[in-house]
């Protein structure tokens, strides 16, 4: 029976993706960029939409939620996965509302006034069946995918507005977005990039090699030299792993150091972050916020005796509070950290925040 076949194929795909996520990121951060993860997640969710058995939007959302929960649980630090699930859920809501013929307005963000007047929660149950819903949802997801394709380019296009000739730019570690951003600026302008190496994984080395290949003047510094060098820097441009709901960052270790040094010298700190990194998560001491990997890079396993006497930790992420950030550059333009909450409400439906 072809239907069963398809379903088996689908579960297999999902399992493979989950296993990939679980094993992904052995230390040096994810093997693929988060952009790729976002695209893969979305493509997978499209497949779910197309192949799973559902009759109404409610069913579909339930299925997507279920898969989404498993995907986020597989690698809690990879927030893009969860973000994409939320985006797809929002798409389904919108398409359902459109099929019902209700205007966009009614399903919009609940304002205080509306909460007051509506009286009680919306009794929407998404149970109605529409013939074209499936096609519409898939179409919308395709649009989302196209948007994801272009994010890096969109961000890089804005480079010339921010980087001027003969500036000294500092960055930390390796970010694909920042790399594209700097390379784009280098087509027209000459500037100097200082890369903090970001021990113990030293992704900064790779970044520096890539930049110098694009004939950008590049210097690698040790993390300890960040503060010392900061006085010469005109602008700090960094990437991030996640943008949190309060406008803070969860970024690679060492970013907080850079941000504090930049604040001390009043150097502007610009964060290149595509919209799909925006997560409804708030910073907390919660366990999923941190990610500890094998301490191998800090103190190699070959060390011998000393290892039995010490505890070695190797955290991957830093939290950077929103006060330290000057500007976010996303694929839809520049925003201040205080505006993040607004973007958040545009991207995700408030009822979906907890999967």
């Amino acid at each position, binding site marked *: 029976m072809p239907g069963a076949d398809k379903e*088996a194929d689908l*579960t*297999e795909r999902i*399992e*493979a993706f989950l*296993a990939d996520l*679980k*094993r992904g*990121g*052995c*230390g040096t951060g994810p093997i693929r960029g988060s952009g790729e993860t976002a*695209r*893969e997640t979305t*493509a997978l969710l499209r497949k779910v939409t197309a192949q799973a058995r559902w009759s109404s939007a409610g069913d579909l959302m339930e299925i997507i939620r279920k898969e989404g929960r498993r995907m986020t*649980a597989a690698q809690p630090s990879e927030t893009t996965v969860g973000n994409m699930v939320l985006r797809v859920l929002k798409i389904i809501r919108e398409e359902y509302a459109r099929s019902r013929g209700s205007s966009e307005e009614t399903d919009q963000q609940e304002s205080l006034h509306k909460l007051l007047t509506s009286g009680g929660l919306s009794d929407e149950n998404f149970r109605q069946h529409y013939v074209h819903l499936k096609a519409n949802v898939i179409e919308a997801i*395709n649009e989302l*995918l*196209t948007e994801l*394709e272009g994010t890096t380019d969109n961000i890089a296009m804005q480079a010339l507005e921010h980087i001027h000739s003969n500036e000294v730019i500092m960055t930390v570690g390796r970010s694909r977005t920042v790399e594209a951003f700097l390379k784009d600026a280098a087509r027209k302008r000459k500037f100097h990039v200082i890369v903090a190496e970001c021990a113990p994984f030293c992704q900064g080395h790779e970044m520096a090699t890539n930049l110098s290949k694009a004939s950008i003047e590049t210097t690698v510094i040790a993390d300890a030299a960040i503060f010392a060098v900061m006085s010469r820097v005109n602008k700090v441009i960094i990437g991030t792993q996640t943008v949190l709901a309060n406008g803070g960052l969860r970024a690679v270790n060492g970013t907080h150091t850079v941000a504090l040094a930049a604040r001390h010298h009043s150097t502007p700190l610009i964060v290149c972050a595509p919209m799909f990194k925006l997560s409804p998560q708030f910073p907390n*001491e919660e*366990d*999923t916020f*941190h990610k*500890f*990997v*094998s*301490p*191998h890079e800090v103190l*190699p*396993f*070959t*060390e*011998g*005796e000393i*290892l*039995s006497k010490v*505890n*070695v*930790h*190797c955290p991957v992420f830093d939290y950077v509070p929103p006060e330290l950030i000057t500007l976010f550059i996303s694929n839809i333009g520049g925003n201040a950290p205080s505006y993040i909450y607004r973007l958040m409400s545009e991207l995700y439906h408030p009822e979906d925040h907890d999967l």
Partner: protein
Amino acid sequence: MSSRGGKQKKGNVTSEQEEEEQPLQAVLVADSFNRRFFPISKDQPRALLPLGNVAMIDYTLEFLTSTGVQETFVFCCWMSNKIKDHLLKSKWCRPTSPNVVHIITSDLYRSLGDVLRDVDAKNLVRNDFILVYGDVVSNIDVSQALQEHRHRRKVDKNISVMTMVFKESSPGHKSRCEEDDVIVAMDSKSKRFSMGTDEFEIRHDLLDCHISICSPQVAELFTDNFDYQTRNDFVRGILVNEEILGNQIHLYVTQDGYGARVSNLQMYDSVSSDMVRRWVYPLTPEANFTDQQGQGCTHSRHNVYRGAEVSLGHGSQMEENVLIGRDTSIGANCHISNSVIGNNCTIGDNVVLDRAHMWNNVHISSNVEIHQSVVCDGAVVKEAVRLNKQCVLAYNVVIGPNLSLPEGTVVSMHHPEEEEEDDDDEFLSDDQEVGHSKDKTRQKAFNPAEVGPEGKGYIWKASMNDTEDEELAQCLWGLVLNPDPESDSESEASEESQDRTFQLEVLGTLQRGLEENIVCDNLVLEINSLKYAYNITLKEVMQILTRVVLEYPFQQQGTQLTTLQYTGSLLPLLKTWSPVFKNYIKRAQDHLDCLSAVEELFLEQDTHQTAMVKVLMKMYQLEILEEEAILKWFSTGATNDKSRQLRKNQGLQKFIQWLKEAEDESSEEGE
């Protein structure tokens, strides 16, 4: 479908196709074939013992799956039903599993050798496969090693049969198993295990991960050599016969990743703590890689992991490196560090746990102190009990109250003697039978002095049944080796004695040859086989042979021979055995070695020095020795006073003189 997504999939498909041509297979041996974990493994096979609240075999399977293994054969023997049940319930047997697990059980496996012979008999493997035990914990990416292995096999026409994975870790590392301490000699360039090549490294900083990549030949070789029991036998066999069979073993040394085998409780302790300290990332407790409901836990500062529904009393501290399973409740004012606590445990107030490993459903009353001990499923520790280091409480034991167990105590519900009774059919008996015999022997009373007034269980003594082979096997915690200098000399001595026995064997062979008139070719054959049996080099063979022949008259007729009698009986012997000599003495170096052996002998038998000339003369005439070699020996060989003295012997001088003249003549003739 967007173009990018499509590309992605296509990439996957092609790589899958390549692999599909030869899906990577693995052989997982879920039996240890020893009794290191007795009495714990009496109730539960070793592969199912929990490490960080997950059965060990799951780590191994996850390791195999993540390296891209698509088909795994799990071989079980001891308590195979339990392993089978476990696997059938696990995610490995779900239809979506990328790694297809076949379970093969037989009660007849007694060693790794049996398993591999069965692999060969059933023709299970078609290509290179990974061989691991069910108690290996690793996150090493062996695909690199696999590639090297395949490359070598392609280049060298299947000479390399096995690649063993080693991990660098310097001596003194706590995850180095003292018993597995290896010193590896390897060819630095080709990464080959070597014996007697010209250039090699000797390394002592390697940890054997017990992961090997084998070619299908390995299974065949095990079949051919039915005496191979373990991998060590195999390695030894291959290395010894390297010259004959031409098989080689290579090694792959990795610096990153983690790999260790839980071979005793010491290793259990250190692997468990390494796992909690995240060395095996991404195989960490909170990852819940077994994908089991309710197994998930959270990870917070100082490597404290908590499962669902854990309750912690007022004032209790979880210091660092603590893993607590779900539904466990801990009382007030407890102090826990470096410990793993299983599911459904209850722990009273004022309990101190340090390096404790508690499995599921354990009950600990108040005021208990546990240091570096293992407490198995269902055990009960009553009030005010103190477990000192390296104690083991096996399944369902009850201890206390008010007792302090001395260091290294092992308590089990099985009586140690019952153990001996059904010793023979240990591996054959199924669980049922063990259960019966247990009931029969249950009558024996527990000793309240040993296990406390309310205690249940029997003390196992470490030296209980050190039947013949190692008491090692009984030693749960593994041994701490004191590097004693004597052991070196011992091994030397044993080598010496090996030479000695070889010499006697050669003598016997020659004697028999003489008595039964055996053709010299056959003698050579026999000596050759002896050479391999005793692992003697060619040089030594020749020296010993020379010695044996020259001493032969003394052996036969006593040492009181006059020189004349000696030469009289020796010279005909030399004539008979000259083909044997000629077989071994070929290169110039051989001649010199032979001469030095002759010299050595006559230095010992200084009363017969005059006979030496005759011997040399005869050997020269029989064309065993060449004149050039003799001359060279004469001119350069003198190293000490005695040998110089020897060379002043008149007869010898004359002989040399004669040789020289002969040479001159011959060269003149030549001109």
